């Protein structure tokens, strides 16, 4: 039992050092842009970009070093005057739609947008028939 505890203690010390680099975070990983309007645009974009390592989180939510580097990338580009959607397009060009949390209508995703409309139309048709036949009886 004691040996197991020692092993667990050793692991808890060893793991973080093994998986982390020693470089400080990128300059704009945790630093906001001075211009509040620019920072707001950067923040809105960061909330809709997926962290590539911690895949359930946006880069705004994640403390993974790679997410910090992505935030740096977003902030530097916004500060240079790039449009948020241009930055998103740049990333999608490299990682596919997977990197973006803002869904786009394309050949693969159109059923997601069409299905609710089709279901609503179907429901309307069924209800209409039920009420009209109900009135007839």
């Amino acid at each position, binding site marked *: 039992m004691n040996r197991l505890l020692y092993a667990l203690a050793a692991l808890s010390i060893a793991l973080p050092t093994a998986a982390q*680099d*020693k*470089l400080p975070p990128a300059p704009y990983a945790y630093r906001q842009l001075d211009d509040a309007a620019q920072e707001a645009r950067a923040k809105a974009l960061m909330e809709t970009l997926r962290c*590539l390592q911690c895949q359930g989180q946006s880069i705004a939510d994640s403390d993974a070093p*790679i997410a910090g*580097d992505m935030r*740096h990338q977003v902030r530097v580009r916004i500060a240079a005057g790039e449009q948020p959607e241009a930055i998103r397009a740049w*990333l999608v060009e490299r*990682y596919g739609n997977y990197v973006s949390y803002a869904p786009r209508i394309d050949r693969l995703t159109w059923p997601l947008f069409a299905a609710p409309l089709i279901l609503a139309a179907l429901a309307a048709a069924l209800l209409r028939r039920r009420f009209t036949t109900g009135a007839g009886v």
Partner: protein
Amino acid sequence: MNGPPSPRSRTAAARWELWLPLALFAGFVALVAAGLLRPASRDVKSAMIGKPLPEFTLRPAVAARPGLTRADLTGARPRLLNIFASWCVPCIAEAPQLEALRRAGVEIDGIAIRDTTADLEAFLARNGNPYARIGADEVSAIQFALGSSGVPESFVIDARGVVRYQHIGDITPKQVPLILAKLKEAEQ
């Protein structure tokens, strides 16, 4: 108590319906089991395959090797571009395979992600240095430009500087022939 007995056809339908929830449940269990036994791939593939490399210039990461620019990756033959870091554990496992590739005549260039010169030099001293050049990418900028999402990753770059193949994760001993085949393929 149970009400009047149903007609024969109705009983048959009821008997069939009785099994429906169990069948649905079994289907659900099969779905979950499939997901647990064969989890979907978490790899994020680069969309840069078939596209030319972006322009970049990286300063030398260590004193013993020059830095890396886009122009270095174009030339007479396909090259292997290895994205790695001294803090990356699978990169240690990959080192012997990179050395084997180098001995087989493959030219390997490295991009070190978020690394310090001292750490890198210690890493190379311990695990060998198969790289012709090593560029330092402190903020992962070139990694993003390549569509790479982690370390280690390796890209086969053809003579015109077009990305031909991406290998995600460490190259295992079994995968060395695959990498050699992809490099050969990139000669055309």
